[in-house]
């Protein structure tokens, strides 16, 4: 019979563990300046669902869209958009090579991976993403970078996605991440 004290301790341990997982699952971002250009290192938890892996292995291509917005957040006034950048990664599975290929649609760079876990790890840590030129920014403004990320299955019309209501959605929106663009 589980005593109250034991139950309490187990509960605390469970909550602590789940909290750690939750913290770990959250994304983060940071920016730094290098030769007059601001770069960002981004960590976003990308986990492919079973249905998404099945779709990938069935030949459906997925796009990971990262939309970065630099906003000047002002008190008592509307925020001012400084610039916007969209980075798109195409993920596809080649049945002949049995490998996943991740292509950066902006730069054309490709990476080839044998396992979906590698793909997740590769996309979860994006390093040195060029963001904005220092000359475009005001000295005394307080800038925030807002990142909206989403994973979308390509080659399927919205109707086909709607009518596939009984299974897990192939599209997923990731949690929005914000960080200060420190100068």
């Amino acid at each position: 019979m589980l005593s109250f004290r034991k139950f309490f301790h187990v509960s605390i341990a469970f909550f602590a563990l789940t909290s750690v997982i939750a913290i770990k699952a959250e994304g983060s971002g940071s920016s730094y300046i290098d030769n007059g250009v601001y770069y960002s290192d981004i960590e976003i938890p990308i986990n492919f669902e079973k249905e998404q892996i099945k779709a990938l292995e069935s030949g459906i291509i997925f796009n990971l869209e990262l939309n970065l917005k630099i906003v000047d957040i002002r008190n008592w006034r509307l925020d001012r958009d400084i610039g916007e950048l969209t980075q798109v990664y195409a993920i596809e599975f080649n049945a002949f090579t049995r490998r996943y290929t991740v292509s950066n649609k902006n730069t054309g760079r490709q990476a080839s991976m044998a396992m979906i876990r590698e793909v997740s790890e590769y996309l979860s840590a994006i390093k040195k993403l060029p963001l904005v030129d220092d000359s475009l920014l005001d000295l005394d403004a307080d800038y925030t970078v807002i990142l909206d990320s989403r994973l979308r299955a390509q080659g399927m019309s919205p109707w086909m996605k709607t009518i596939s209501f009984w299974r897990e959605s192939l599209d997923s929106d990731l949690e929005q991440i914000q960080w200060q663009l420190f100068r």
Partner: protein
Amino acid sequence: MATIQIKAKTTKRIIFSLIFLSAGSLLALMFAADNPNELNRMQSSLLVLNILSFIVFLIIVALSAKNLLNDYRKNKLGAKLRLRMALAFSGLAVIPAVVLFFFAINFMNKGISVWSDADVEQGLNNALMLGRSALDEKIQQGLFETTNIALQLQGIENIDLQLRELVQKSKAEQLVILDSDIQVLASGSDQISRVSTRIPTLLEIEQANLKQSWTSLDSSPDGSYLIRVLVPVLSFSSNQKPLYLQAFFSVDPKLSMMADSVEETYARYGRLNFMKDPIQYSYILTLAIVVLLALLLAIYGSIEFADRLVKPIESLEKEAESMIKNPRFADNNNSSDEITTLVNSFMKAQKEAAWSDVARRMAHEINNPLTPIQLSAERIKKRFSTSTGEDLKFITTSTDTIVNQVEVLREMVNAFGKFAEQPKLKTERINMSKIIDEAIGLYSKDHKAIKFSSKYTDETFIHGDEKKLRQILNNLLKNSIDALANIEKPRITVATKDIQINKTDFLELSIEDNGIGFSEETVSKAFEPYVSTKPKGKGLGLAIVKNIVDEHQGHIAIKNNPEGASVIITIPVKQQKQNL
């Protein structure tokens, strides 16, 4: 009433618009569904449009059905028949549509299930394996060559130069030296642009460390394939990070193309297989919408059709009611469909039957007292024949007037009696030319101012009742003579012509005069009893003629000419057996 008509018109406009809209969108949907791999973007909106059409149709049909049921509950005239007909027609439409729907779905499902045929999948897998096996030897050759190059690189200081030389000597497209942090230390390449972006992952480095080699087959965006080999290189000093040599080898373009083709087919098959269920549901939904729209249209059409079909029967009842109130109720229905014609014929028959009955009763009731009146008048005359002077004159004039008027009444009663007689034809082969000649001869003696003429062949024989045919001629000639009063240069022409209608021989008899003609009002009711334009006419002449023509299974028509009028009669030359 006007509001109801406007509403009905609006409903019809909505229905026609919906039919066109749905037909158009269904056609678009059909073409959109031609590409199951990526169904047209418009498909969602087209389906929504059709679902909206379906909802509007459903409301209209529900309202029509509700009206019909209300009429039925209120025992409105014709509602029961309308309901039965609507149910029958709807049933006729619904049953085949539902059967067709399920058969279509069954066939469609069978067609789609062919996509995921296990044999096809196995065949494609085998093709992929075969392709990979064909490249296994190349991969082993690449591994052997890369390992040799790695051995040659040990202890060499000018590694960049050495790499370029080794690339030229070997079959490799590119040779790269990397450290364990995946930093490129040196590179020697022939085609840098194609392979420079390929960097091993940490996992691959780990694998290369663990197994002393790592190989992979990579695809390029241009559809070609590359063999990638990663082997560790012995470090130059113990403090240095572990180094790795990555080599790229190209695959024969022909083999690459075939491998790409197999992979593309496999991927297309995989996509179709993955989307099989949604495509199937999409088709079923589209088909269901088409069938439901067609069914609703059929049900609405059934209700409308039943309504239109029953309307003349309702008007029959209304006319019958009106006739009870007014026997001379005007026939204003100008509709020309079969049911209306049938109803009109029925109404006419009812009217004629009613008139026959009236005539028979009148003849009976009037005829009975006439003989006692006449005999009494003659007795009075005889009794007072011995009187003299003014008394005798008074008695004689009065009794003569009574006797003469009784004769007039008797004639009228006889005429009614003839009208009421049941058709009993005594047919025989008769020469119409002779009858016409005799009739003209009879009337021309008394009306010398009128110019009589006839146009016919010498011997025109038909089967008919001679007495009744003579009566036709007499009545029509009398009418013509009356119409020619006060006409300058009066003339009457009687003509016959042999004609054929539906391979049956007919005799066409026409009597034409240049008299005053028929008024517009008379033309429509000319054959009804009591219709006459003459001041002293009984209005039975043309009615009797019509009866006789009907008895002979003929047809009669009247028409006004630029001068005067014509009566045209067509009678079959041979009578049907039942009338003989």
